């Protein structure tokens, strides 16, 4: 596997505050890498350093195994925080300007405008765009030079549900083309839906990293319900039950290791109880995230 980005002991201190503290991280080619963390955990500072706008206090990072240069940055498409463009220029002219900076042909512009569905509004001034359109123009600009790596920082921040769905669709399309994507977000659901790998930052420290597929391994939760009195106690008599919670009118059974919904169903059936609801729930990233955050101090 080819390492696209290798971060080695990267730190950024603002006075006493350690915004990023000895960060070590590798991103491989083709990964959709999610950077998770609460607000102020150092995501944007890290991405700022990777893109040359924030000077690191110490440590270094390599893009494609090389020391970072402006020439390398032109091959990386990045949207950090909110979209930034010249408000008095049209979308088209803003992209023309970016094409000049990235030294890529202006012929690329129609294609990226089409991808983000902004062709019709391209000649309107940027300041007349809605937030969703601004975000999409930012993604268009990031894709302009046909980059091999895409960095997106909270790309769905402040968008309405439709806008969020559109941006996710665009990210999936891009990922399907084999591009490496680094996505910073505090929206866990978003990371779970689009990412292959993720890392969790807390107060500048990386406290977890791994593939998204690993989430949900370990103990299972089964949601179950039946029209039986004292169902709670019946559930507790099952040898695979670790704990039972009643939530939203159904019972959440946390299973011991090695037990699954199938065994619970069998057990209840043998007891003469027919369930009217049974769902095996994978642990959501949100749960795991909160667990990891509360474990790390």
């Amino acid at each position: 596997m080819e390492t696209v980005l290798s971060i080695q002991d990267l730190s950024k201190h603002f006075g006493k505050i350690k915004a990023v503290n000895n960060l070590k991280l590798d991103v491989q080619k083709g990964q959709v890498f999610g950077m998770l963390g609460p607000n102020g955990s150092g995501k944007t500072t890290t991405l700022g350093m990777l893109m040359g706008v924030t000077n690191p206090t110490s440590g270094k990072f390599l893009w494609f195994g090389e020391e970072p240069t402006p020439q390398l940055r032109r091959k990386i498409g990045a949207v950090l925080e909110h979209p930034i463009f010249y408000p008095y220029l049209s979308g088209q002219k803003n992209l023309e300007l970016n094409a000049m900076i990235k030294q890529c042909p202006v012929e690329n512009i129609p294609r990226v405008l089409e991808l983000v569905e902004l062709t019709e509004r391209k000649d309107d001034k940027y300041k007349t765009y809605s937030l969703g359109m601004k975000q999409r123009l930012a993604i268009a600009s990031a894709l302009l030079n046909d980059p091999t790596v895409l960095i997106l920082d909270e790309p769905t921040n402040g968008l309405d549900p439709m806008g969020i769905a559109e941006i996710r669709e665009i990210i999936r399309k891009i990922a399907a083309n084999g591009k490496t994507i680094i996505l910073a977000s505090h929206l866990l659901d978003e990371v779970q839906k689009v990412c292959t790998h993720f890392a969790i930052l807390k107060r500048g420290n990386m406290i977890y990293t791994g593939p998204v597929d690993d989430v949900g391994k370990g103990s299972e939760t089964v949601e179950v319900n039946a029209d039986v009195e004292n169902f709670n106690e019946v559930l507790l008599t099952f040898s695979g039950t670790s704990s039972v919670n009643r939530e939203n009118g159904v019972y959440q059974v946390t299973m011991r290791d090695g037990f699954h919904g199938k065994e619970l169903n069998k057990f209840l059936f043998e007891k003469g109880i027919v369930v009217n609801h049974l769902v095996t729930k994978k642990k959501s990233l949100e749960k795991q995230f909160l667990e990891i955050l509360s474990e790390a101090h």
Partner: protein
Amino acid sequence: MLQLLRIDLKKLTSYRTFWIICGLYFFTLGMATASGMEFLKWLASLIEGFGQSINIDRIPLYHFPDVWQNLAWSSGLLKIMLGIMVLISITNEYSYRTVRQNIIDGLSRAEFLYSKITTNLLLSLLSMVLVFFVSLVTGLIYSPSLNWHYMFNGIEFFPAYFLEVFAFLSFALMLGIFVQRSGLSIVLLLNSYLIELIIKKNIDDYVPQVIQFFPLESIMNLVPMPFARYAFQEIQDYVSLPAVGIALVWTFLFNYFSYLRLKKADL
């Protein structure tokens, strides 16, 4: 380098404020320098009202070779407008945060600065060319006789005027990069002469010899004020090389300080 100039011009040429200020500047520059005779006529009629009279034909405002220094000096007064334009251009980059995006998109910090410096060079060059042509044309119109031997005496005031404008724009650019806010930086630019004047007046009695090394003073010394010669006073009618040296050093420093500031900043 040319590519960087094109990038900065792309930002500016669709910006209405740029056209308004630059249009106003070059229009005023052309008109003001060309209408000196009208000004003298007005002055004469004013003095006549007091019962005195002057013969304006005896003031060779537009005669070769006087015209070069006269117009180069007068034009220098208007450079403050260009300075304000430069401040707006650079502080916009900070208020829109586009300086950050430009770096992210692949400009180096030095390249970003060069793009602004090349625009300053272009504006200085255009100013010089415009004033040169106005001088040439008015000189040809008003000079009673043309003598090729001394007609171009004092033409060195034009490179000096170019340096004067460029040094001042470099100063404005540095101010913008350090202050980053348009309103405050414009106020500071307008007051910078006053601030320097106060300092100069306070040290004049003790160390007058250092005054020529002050930054704005050094810019002013490039093209000395010529009009006192019409009141029969001795003037400096040449470009002093030490003055050029001092101004060049300051110009370099202004841009170098800008570079250091940009390099160190977290954008």
